[in-house]
């Protein structure tokens, strides 16, 4: 079943076309990689998927089981609420808030008690806050962060900040998870741990994952399919083995052979 369908997506900034005529289909439960040289438009593509930018043309459709909904043109919070969550290339945690609060904020969309209930601490406030706290702690435990739940997120070491960002994205209960360079700045040891973690959460949370990554060991190991973006265009897609030996991809990364 196709869960996310991108049709002829284009984004231009003035004269520069950052993403041009991209078509992509994600099947439910797939783990897909998006690679490409620096400046190829990968993050712009993510920003289009999550509503940070509005596409110049083309459309994005999300199928959440029973209805197909066009999500291009919606605001980021609306897209997240439909089940597309993301992490950021340059970590964007809520730095001066605790680890626990970072998770709880992501769970806000499921909060039912109203503003009045928060003013006067009505019973619904206590009931739901307790549920939120329990669920957040469960999530922190999975990511090995439960002992740090009261620390400010800015005080966590880098690797844990990356993990917290993934945990926070999962707290929004997504069906599609977009990871923007999750292994950036990690050492080989941490990367291999992260690789296992990504595979594990995919199964555990029943996710479809699209990830941008420069670390080829990670991409080749876990991605079932890979899209290669260069100058805003998809130049190749297929299984990792096919991509490795694709002439266009090698050219994009290493340059053309001089003949």
């Amino acid at each position: 079943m196709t869960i996310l369908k991108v049709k002829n997506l284009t984004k231009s900034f003035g004269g520069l076309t950052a993403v041009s005529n991209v078509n992509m289909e994600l099947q439910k439960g797939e783990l897909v990689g998006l690679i490409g040289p620096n400046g190829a438009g990968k993050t712009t593509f993510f920003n289009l998927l999550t509503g940070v930018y509005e596409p110049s043309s083309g459309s994005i459709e999300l199928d959440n089981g029973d209805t197909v909904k066009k999500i291009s043109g919606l605001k980021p919070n609306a897209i997240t609420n439909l089940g597309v969550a993301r992490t950021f290339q340059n970590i964007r945690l809520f730095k001066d808030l605790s680890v626990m609060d970072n998770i709880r904020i992501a769970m806000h969309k499921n909060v039912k008690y109203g503003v009045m209930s928060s003013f006067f601490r009505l019973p619904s406030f206590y009931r739901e806050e307790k549920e939120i706290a329990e669920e957040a702690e469960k999530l922190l435990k999975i990511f090995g962060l439960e002992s740090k739940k009261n620390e400010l997120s800015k005080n966590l070491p880098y690797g844990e900040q990356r993990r917290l960002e993934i945990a926070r994205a999962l707290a929004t209960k997504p069906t599609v998870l977009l990871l923007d360079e999750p292994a950036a700045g990690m050492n080989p040891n941490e990367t291999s741990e992260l690789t296992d973690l990504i595979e594990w959460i995919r199964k555990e949370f029943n996710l479809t994952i699209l990830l941008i990554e420069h670390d080829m060991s990670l991409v080749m190991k876990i991605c079932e399919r890979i899209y290669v973006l260069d100058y805003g265009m998809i130049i190749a897609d297929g299984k990792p083995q096919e991509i490795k030996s694709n002439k266009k991809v090698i050219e994009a990364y290493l340059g053309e052979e001089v003949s």
Partner: protein
Amino acid sequence: MNRIFNAKNIKTAAGVIGLYGIVQLLIMFNILSDYYQITIALICINIILAVSLNLITGFTGQFSLGHAGFMSIGAYSGALITINITHEYSFFLGIAAGAFFAAVVGLLIGIPTLRLRGDYLAIATLGMGEIIKIIVLNLDFTGGAAGLSGIPQYTNWTWLFIFTAGTVIVIKNFINSSHGRACKSIREDEIASEAMGINTTKYKVLAFVIGAFCAGVAGALYSSYFYFIKPDMFGFLRSIDILVIVVIGGMGSIRGSIISAILLAVVSLYLQDFPEIRMILYSSILVIVMVVREKLKNGKFKFDGLPWKKPDKMRT
């Protein structure tokens, strides 16, 4: 474990009610002069204003320079109602109307201006405060530049205390709820906040409206305490005064706002004895407080003995 009646809450409540009782007794037995009573009233009103501005600026991160505008709407609504309606409940009607109109204006102004960020928002709210002032200045029923006088005095220590404590509790409850966390996430990182599914526009406007509502209450209490109001009282300078309280107390700290409202009122009370250099001293104190506070916060301001008695290992 009881959620409301736990040891900490009971201790706090006992302390706060004790404070109320002591001041009430001092007033009843005429130990506190009028001058001190006025200072206490100003402290309460400033606490309401500072805590509500802190919600907008300190917690939600939206810089506002027009808080006095909302206060003036509350003050004029309250005053006009208590002057024109003579009824035992007209005081409460005045406060309710003041809060309501301030909140409505907050909503109408918040929706367009909160799209702006940082210094642009500051300028827009500054303009908003001035526009409210000019409108009040030019209307007939507000008394124009001469202002309104003969406002019945209903506000007393008891009501000031109840409304101040009520505002602090309600805003503190709000901040420590999921809605309050949504506001704080906007301050921390607006893009991440949206990516986590928070409707940032809604929460910015909500914080603005709650802040305006409380400022309206403060304004209505103010007009009913001081008999007399005029547009100048609610100008740019008062907005700055409120902002100074918030900044001195610490952005995003309710307790800080309360302490700094009290501290600054006491400081200006004692500076009345030096009328010529009052503002110089006041400003100097602000500068000193900011420098010391920043160092305390960063842990740099540690007292490790007198400089000439420092142990040798410190001299490196």
